């Protein structure tokens, strides 16, 4: 887990995707798929991850498990970053 990655993701959600109803940043384990990220928000989130971390998210990786919470997205990003550094 990376606090830095999570902070980036949180800032993106707060700044770019949300908020219909206030300005409170979602916590690490708060559910995102039930009312926070809609389809447009998810696409923005994926584009953000790809731009910000230089990763490519495949269609198959777009699972609810990977995008459930900020912590889950962080795990996905860390996993992919680790894979990349192994490969290089």
């Amino acid at each position, binding site marked *: 887990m990376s606090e830095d990655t999570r902070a980036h993701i949180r800032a993106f959600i707060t700044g770019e995707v949300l908020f219909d109803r206030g300005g409170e940043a979602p916590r690490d384990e708060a559910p995102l798929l039930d009312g926070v990220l809609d*389809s*447009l928000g998810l696409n*923005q989130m*994926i584009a953000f991850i790809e731009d910000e971390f230089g990763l490519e998210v495949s269609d198959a990786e777009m699972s609810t498990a990977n995008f459930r919470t900020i912590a889950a997205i962080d795990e996905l990003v860390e996993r992919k970053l680790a894979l990349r550094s192994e490969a290089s």
Partner: protein
Amino acid sequence: MTEELTQDTAESLDADVIIIGGGPAGATVGAYLGRAGYRALILDRDIHPRDHVGESLVPATNIVTHDLGFWEKMESSQFIKKPGATWTGTKGKVGSEFVVTFAEIPQKIPNPEYTYHVDRAVFDAMYLRHAHELGAEVIEGATVLKVHFDGDRATGVRVRVLGREIDLRSKFVVDASGRRCQLGKQLGLWEKDKQFNQFAIYSWFEGVKPPSEQTAEYIHVHFLPVERGWVWHIPIYQGVTSVGAVVEKSQFTKSGKDHETFFNELLGMTANTRHILEDAKRVRPFFIEADYSYKMDHFSGPGWLMVGDAARFVDPIFSSGVSVAMRSGQFAFQALEEALKGGDETAAFGTYNETVSRGVQIWYEWITLYYRLQALFTRFSGQPQFKADIQQLLQGEVFDKSAVKVLDRMKAAIATIESTKDHVMREYLNDNIEVVEASVGIGASEGGDR
């Protein structure tokens, strides 16, 4: 067309080409023919200016408006420049929008960085007048009742004008009657689209606020949290905005609501749609369009061609109407000119049919993919390798290139979503839409004339 027929009957004919309808499709054909010195007769049942839906153009129209010398007239008009398009989501905050700016990836067309939003009453009248100035004859208030055929060959029309019914003869007949589909209905070619049964309710408003000041002149598409529902938001004049909601027709019929209540409920559904109308005042009655998605098996036959909406209309989502009208009008002129010069009509009209079929099929596939998974294209737009394809489609350049890679890539993505049970996009798939391959209808038969 044989030389013999041309010489024997040319003097007794009322025109080289009779064009049914003086909207952007008919006016394009008339303008090109008139400029080339042919006798084009446009018959329009309406008296312009008259209202029409479809107020936002795509840059592909610049090809034709430049070519015909009409661009300068648009530049000196009151119309608002359109630099791109934006989308807002159903849960996003006000001002959070996905933005596509034409200038980012300019197409190989004149002035690729913008086109216009237009008041169609004014625009269509200006454009028809331009066709007249280039040499087309125009009769307004003339209702074409039927197209005459000799065997399977179109030979002219019966028109009601001056309180009489008159028969007019020409070498060719072009159906530009719009969604009335004069010839398609007469020949039994018109077929209701099986998938799309949308309903649009729209009006003009003063005091509409854009999602953000930076994109005030863009077209805005606001997603609604109902099946295939969205809102168009088009600046028409300074301070005047066209706002329309599109939903499945059954949504309206089963609601039992009146137009105003239904519209207000739809626009109350998201933060962005609430925001745009917060201080707005409606300045026109509501207009309604329904049952507008249909197709034809083919768009040409002996002595006749269909152009624009008279050939096909699916859905207004990508502002394709006027561009299909103008581009098909341009291709129709090329086919007609070849035939009028004594060339091979069957081959020329066959080429026309194939070109227009391919273009409208790409539009159709793009529209069905879009509705199958509305937000999918925003993902692709974010990826460098597809950005150019998406821009090409959004700018309306679908006729010249048949391979649009991004459509295949979108289909693959949808297949993955379908086969991945916990895919994050699964719940957004619209199961009522079937994606149709762009190959359908391409090279369709020519009604037995080849």
